[in-house]
């Protein structure tokens, strides 16, 4: 728990003063930082503005609990934190809704395969869907910022592998990737190990940027391909 002693407040002119306030100042700082930002903030960024030795994890947990019943909630998104409006109030906020490009069925399915099956190559996506992916589908998904090329599979042709991004996690409000709805059932039914040799353990989707054993890092220039990612070698 956060220390409950009176907190040192750094006032604008840099001097210190004692403040008697039931609310610990570290929590106020945390609150202010997270509130001011549109983007989720990681714990490192938050720590940089807080006194050394401050128990950030405990404070975040306390703040999250404190805001749980409010119109604005503190949510964890991957390894970042952000305030978001409570999801049950969406009916009030129609004015704030942003026009989003409606994704085609092909794009939605492709996104789901990338999310649940990552890292995954284009050929693997095509195998699952039983149809070739049009170039535009991957482009549209890259444009959303939800997917990214993350490496190359160590197989002949060295195809690009795709995975999801932090924006994906933030957009769909996932605390972590394993919170993907229906993931357990999908895994339990053996749907994620179709192509792998039987001695492989069942893969779990992971957006951990660390490459898998069967992935090579991207090469210079690969990210330029990002927006037109159909390396001929993959065919």
């Amino acid at each position, binding site marked *: 728990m956060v220390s409950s002693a009176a907190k040192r407040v750094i006032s604008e002119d840099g001097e210190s003063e004692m403040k008697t306030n039931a609310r610990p100042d570290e929590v106020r700082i945390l609150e202010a930082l997270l*509130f*001011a*930002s*549109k*983007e989720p903030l990681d714990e490192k960024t938050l720590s940089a503005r807080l006194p050394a030795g401050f128990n950030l994890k405990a404070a975040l947990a306390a703040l999250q609990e404190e805001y749980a019943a409010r119109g604005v909630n503190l949510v964890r998104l991957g390894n970042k934190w*952000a*305030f*978001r*409006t*409570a*999801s049950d109030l*969406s009916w009030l*906020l129609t004015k*704030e*809704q*942003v026009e*989003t490009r409606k994704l085609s*069925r*092909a794009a*939605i*399915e492709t*996104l*789901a*395969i990338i*999310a*649940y099956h990552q890292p995954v190559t284009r050929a693997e996506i095509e195998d*699952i*869907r*039983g*149809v*070739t992916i049009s170039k535009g589908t991957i482009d549209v998904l890259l444009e959303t910022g939800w997917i990214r090329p993350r490496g190359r599979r160590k197989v002949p042709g060295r195809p690009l592998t795709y995975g999801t991004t932090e924006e994906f996690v*933030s*957009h*769909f*409000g*996932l605390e972590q990737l394993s919170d*993907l*709805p*229906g*993931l357990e*059932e*999908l895994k339990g*039914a053996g*749907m994620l190990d*179709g192509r792998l040799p039987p001695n492989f353990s069942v893969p779990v989707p992971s957006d951990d940027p660390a490459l898998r054993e069967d992935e090579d890092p991207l090469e210079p220039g690969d990210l330029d391909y990002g927006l037109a990612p159909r390396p001929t070698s993959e065919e």
Partner: protein
Amino acid sequence: MNAEIIPFSADVADRASDEPALVVDVEGFEGPLDLLLTLARQQKVDLARISILALADQYLAFIEAARKLRLELAADYLVMAAWLAYLKSRLLVPDSNAPEGQTAEDMATALAFRLKRLEAFREVAQKLMERPRLGRDVFDRGDPEPIAEIRHPQYTATLYDLLSAYASQRSRQALSHVRFAPRKVWSLAEARETIERILGEVAETEWGRLDEFLVRYFVDPEMAATVTASSFAATLEMVREGVMEIQQHTAFSPIYLRKRRAAAGASASPQGETTQ
């Protein structure tokens, strides 16, 4: 392709009468697997227990119907049709003498797995899209407070920069003094300024010797010639302007000068110490 709709008759018998007839718009399918999955759903059984044989029949009937209507079908659909026809023949007429390898049952199981897998991904895709989404169901701070950047300039300079800057400008300045310090020419303007000052110092009617007045400027022997020349030229100029009078009795003899009297027309003769 036209937006033609094919009623899919092969299936009609199995369907409850209140259901709309399956309408097949070929364009609406995402490939042969999607078409197969749609057909499989009509069997209303678990995909694991689906009759691949019946499914193959339905698929082939669909392709046949589409061909009759002269609909263009992508090659994918035709390849699948050929494969299903082959699978069907092997399922119907098992070849007991076939060498070990993939059996017709394995092929059917693989197809069933792919259909099941596609359906499973469709289901999770749907669930994913139904999650409370940012900008649709939940919202971030609409008016975020920007972080202002305060830049602290940190200047860099090396000791070498400092020393070479010092040395080079001191040298530059010192050498420029050496070049321009000794004035070898007394300009006309300087001469005139000096004579005017001298004139101011002498009494109105007195004649004075020019070289006596200028003696302090002859200290540097190098300057003698230029001082004499410039001051003589300056005096002539001033005489012409009527500011002063000048006389010299013989060539190379001393030059006398005095202020011109303001009103008096006649010029008095020089004082006694001068020789006529």
